[in-house]
């Protein structure tokens, strides 16, 4: 075979055997939980206009997509995310449907340029859910409870951590410090990298003392359980940040009431995706995976792009990352194992087929002996 045919493009791979079964089992377990909470499965187009994703994910993220042109010259993309498309459907196809809408999905997504060295894959599979058309704390907590149940069903609860934050914590501070876009992004990057020294330098250069700077400087390290919120509260002097912390306190109270406090952690230094999310944000980490395996949050601005502004919250899990952890751990719910197939042998083909048909009717697994086997 010529090299051009045997070679696999970078970041692409096969899944087969035990791993393929495990993937399906994990996907099935997650979808069953979503179904149990009343979420309807939705499948989105694999190819869509690039403009959809540019609006839906922001220019930077969307630009990682595989892009090509349609017959009329318009720019298309191979689906780099699912949420954009679901949000559009909510505003168009389901414009007249009663709110809230509950959707779930398991779809392959593609990125031509991965985000980091560790993320070499260019095809992934997102399993997720979206709750559209309801605001306030209840939908946020519903989605967190669903995420916790999925992790529990997969046997990952003990080695998982879900970090929660609210975009208002940082946005309120940046507003109070009166930062322009560039300085704001600089501050965000430093908090994101947990670069405490860099933060102090930046704030010192701006020569602004007082509570906002004190909180900003500590933001990168304020994480933990309820006490992290209390520590932040003591330093806050703007309404937006206060409101965000109050919202997080409410989340935390419910998390405690649900007996999930061991799984969750407040992380005020989580400032990724601030231009996308508008409220609660959360990230899911599992021991054995070098980067996060999922995340989500509230995105109340997204649907406005499609002509209908309404509150929305959701999350996705990275199926491949979770499957990899489970495959190594041998702790998957069903471990992807199946009962061995019964060999169906005999002289005549019709006899073998008849026996196989009968066994299949009883739900058994069979493997038909072919000529020469």
């Amino acid at each position: 075979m010529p090299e051009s045919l045997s070679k696999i493009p970078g970041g692409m791979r096969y899944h087969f055997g035990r791993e393929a079964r495990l993937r399906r089992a994990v996907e099935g377990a997650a979808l069953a939980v979503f179904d149990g909470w009343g979420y309807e499965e939705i499948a989105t187009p694999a190819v869509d206009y690039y403009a959809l994703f540019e609006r839906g994910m922001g220019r930077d993220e969307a630009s990682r997509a595989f892009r090509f042109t349609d017959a009329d010259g318009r720019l298309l993309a191979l689906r780099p995310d699912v949420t954009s498309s679901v949000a559009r459907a909510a505003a168009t196809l389901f414009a007249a449907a009663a709110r809230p809408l509950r959707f779930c999905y398991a779809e392959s997504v593609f990125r031509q340029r991965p985000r980091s060295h560790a993320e070499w894959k260019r095809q992934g599979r997102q399993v997720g859910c979206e709750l559209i058309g309801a605001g306030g704390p209840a939908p946020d907590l519903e989605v967190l409870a669903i995420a916790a149940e999925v992790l529990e069903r997969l046997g990952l609860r003990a080695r998982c951590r879900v970090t929660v934050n609210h975009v208002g914590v940082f946005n309120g501070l940046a507003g109070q410090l009166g930062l322009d876009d560039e300085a704001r992004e600089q501050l965000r990057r430093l908090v994101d990298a947990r670069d405490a020294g860099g933060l102090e330098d930046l704030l010192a250069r701006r020569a602004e003392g007082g509570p906002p700077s004190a909180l900003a400087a500590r933001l990168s390290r304020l994480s933990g359980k309820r006490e992290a919120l209390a520590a932040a509260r003591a330093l806050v002097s703007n309404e937006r940040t206060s409101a965000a912390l109050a919202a997080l306190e409410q989340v935390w109270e419910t998390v405690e009431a649900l007996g999930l406090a061991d799984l969750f952690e407040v992380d005020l230094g989580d400032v990724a995706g601030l231009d996308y999310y508008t409220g609660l944000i959360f990230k899911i980490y599992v021991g054995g995976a070098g980067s996060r395996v999922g995340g989500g949050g509230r995105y109340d601005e997204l649907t406005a792009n499609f002509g209908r502004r309404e509150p929305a919250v959701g999350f996705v899990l990275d199926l491949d990352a979770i499957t990899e952890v489970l495959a190594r751990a041998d702790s998957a719910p069903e471990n992807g194992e199946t009962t061995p197939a019964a060999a169906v042998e005999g002289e005549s083909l019709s006899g073998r087929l008849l026996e196989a048909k009968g066994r299949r009717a009883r739900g058994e697994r069979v493997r038909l002996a072919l000529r020469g086997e």
Partner: protein
Amino acid sequence: MQAEALELLMGAGVRVSAEALASRRLAVEDEGGGYRFIFVKPADVPVYVEHGIADCGVVGRDVLLETEADVLQPLDLQIARCRLAVAAPEGARRAPSGMLHVATKYPRVAAAHFGARGVPVEIIGLSGSVELAPVLGLADCIVDLVETGRTLAENGLVVVETIAESTARLVVNRASYQLKASAVAELVNALSEVVKRGC
């Protein structure tokens, strides 16, 4: 950088025996058995940390800038201080509109630096002895790490412009930072005490 980093760690109570260091093993445990050390090339440090094979790493900011590594950087260790700079033969004058040929081990940093200034450049990627390139006429200037400037001077080069200051950083994997939060915090705090004392 390795010796300095090990000294800082010793100050923080993490000691690697001389015997382990003298051996040719690339992975050794500290004396307390709480940490396992792996010794890799600087450019590979962010790779191990991004994948979570190593929870933490010590690496220069120059490498982080070049690799655009997606890792946390909670602490500036204030060692291995140097700068990424543009250097050219002394007295050399660049043609006002011509293409600039830049030899470097830092192609991304160099491209970003000249790109931001709108200067058209051809980046010539090298893996060592970059100072030779302008001397032999391969390039007009270089982008390289400058510590004392002695190597530059010996090859008739002078620093034209500093791109970025660099020191060694403690870097941490994003997942480890959450999943091993207390162990990571302990190390960061202990090291930051040592760094403060050193100042």
